């Protein structure tokens, strides 16, 4: 009997149970393949174009998936009441009036700014162009804070462009596909943004907290001059975000005796998770070679950019190194963007912080 069992054990499975390679072999093969893919994708840049191609295939499926919610939106819009529309119309009229006044002021200020800059023989500030994008959906990865907008490389969106809404900065384009692009929100752990305290001009770098939609200002001494309610604005020294945009408000400062640093918590001003439209702003390349300064030839390498920046300003190096999330590849500038985009306006209309040397001297991200 025992011998009979041994015989059975050694026997191969009959042909009609055949399942091809054993599950273990398949597991080993496909796991190895996945690991190789992960390594390639995170360390090397080969898969970027593959991803773009595949996204084109994914596009129709995405359209199908978005159709129900789009249909719902358009029908509910259709049935929105007359009364509400009237109210909204009135409100918008008022707002347009208020903004027209400030716009007139801004024109005057911009003109004055240009004159003053000419007087000082300072460099012209960078130009920026913007285009309106619509949020297609929120990123599907629970570990990251991302949104997908409906503008892509076909619409001259470039990696590294800043994304703002009516109230403030919400993030940065980190990956572009032909017809859409991925925006990492400023609350994401991998995104940092150089800021300035509006009240006293103090510069710092804000880090996304990752989990609870807040920003941190780490590595500031416990006696730093920051109060609850302080507004953080973009400092503009990174060449990514236009200067003077609202970023966040300081909500909490904790100073503990056992740490030399204060723990400063800020809440973003922009409606990070409750808007449909966003503005994608990219700062143009300074055209004339005189502007870029003789010291820094354009390079495609983030490290050399950072080093060059270190020569100009000690804290700019840190900025240059940290402003682009790790998985972003530096992208060549698109000069054509200057001609295609309509909404040109001069940057830095706010003369509020005049102490800053011109940003044009610094090499920036899109080199």
């Amino acid at each position: 009997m025992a011998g009979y069992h041994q015989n059975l054990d050694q026997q191969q499975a009959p042909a009609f149970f055949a399942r091809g390679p054993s599950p273990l072999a398949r597991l080993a093969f496909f796991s190895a393949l996945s690991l190789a893919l992960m390594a390639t994708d995170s360390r090397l840049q080969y898969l970027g174009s593959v991803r773009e191609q595949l996204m084109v295939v994914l596009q129709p499926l995405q359209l199908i998936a978005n159709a129900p919610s789009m249909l719902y939106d358009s029908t509910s819009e259709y049935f929105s009441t007359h009364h509400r529309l009237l109210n909204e119309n009135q409100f918008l009229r008022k707002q347009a009036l208020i903004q027209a006044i400030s716009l007139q002021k801004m024109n005057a200020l911009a003109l004055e700014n240009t004159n003053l800059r000419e007087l000082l023989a300072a460099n012209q500030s960078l130009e920026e162009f913007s285009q309106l994008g619509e949020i297609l959906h929120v990123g599907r990865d629970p570990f990251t804070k991302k949104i997908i907008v409906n503008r892509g490389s076909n619409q001259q969106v470039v990696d590294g462009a800043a994304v703002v809404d009516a109230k403030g900065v919400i993030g940065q384009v980190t990956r572009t596909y032909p017809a859409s692009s991925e925006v990492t929100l400023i609350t994401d752990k991998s995104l940092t943004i150089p800021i300035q305290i509006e009240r006293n001009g103090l510069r710092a770098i804000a880090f996304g907290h990752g989990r609870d939609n807040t920003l941190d200002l780490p590595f500031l001494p416990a006696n730093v001059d920051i109060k609850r309610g302080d507004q953080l604005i973009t400092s503009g020294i990174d060449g990514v975000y236009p200067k003077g945009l609202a970023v966040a408000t300081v909500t909490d400062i904790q100073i503990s005796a056992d740490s030399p640093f204060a723990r400063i918590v800020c809440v973003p001003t922009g409606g990070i998770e409750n808007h449909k439209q966003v503005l994608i702003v990219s700062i143009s390349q300074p055209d004339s070679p005189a502007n870029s300064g003789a010291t820094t030839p354009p390079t495609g390498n983030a490290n050399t950019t950072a080093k060059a920046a270190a020569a100009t300003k000690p804290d700019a190096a840190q900025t240059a190194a940290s402003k682009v999330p790790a998985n972003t590849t530096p992208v060549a500038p698109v000069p054509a963007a200057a001609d295609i985009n309509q909404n040109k306006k001069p940057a830095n209309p706010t003369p509020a912080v005049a102490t800053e040397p011109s940003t044009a001297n610094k090499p920036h991200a899109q080199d």
Partner: protein
Amino acid sequence: MHKTKLQTIYFSLLVAFICVLLPWSGTALNLRPDFVLLVIIFWILRAPNKCNIGTAWFIGLWVDLATGGVFGQYALAYTVTTFVAVVYQRRLVLFSNTQQLVYVLLLLIISQLTLLTVKIFSGNDVLGWSYFLPSITGVILWQAAVALGLNTSRPSRSK
């Protein structure tokens, strides 16, 4: 061996994938069950000769593409999960409904744990217990599907 057509499998996977692509946001995103993995587990239990680890790996790549993460994360998670499913497949068709439910929950958690491991290795935070909610909603969805008449046992036996 089975009457299941290959087209049925691929079509159901496509539908599940479109469910993933729906514009989820907020709480719904945190609760969203892993539709694709549920469909794969279903077919692996029902027709392992048509849908196997390779299928799971391939569709995992597409989920990776849709989530925008590094290629291979979901692929790896699905590969590991389907391996466990395939190994116990013959026993599983003999399980009672409740036993099967516990087993599916286990598979979904294995998938999430694999993903979590990969994510932690690449420097992400741990998200807390709410990270595992999709496994619970996944099991609820599975139970709903079973209640509606889907059956993992062979078609000949179910009729």
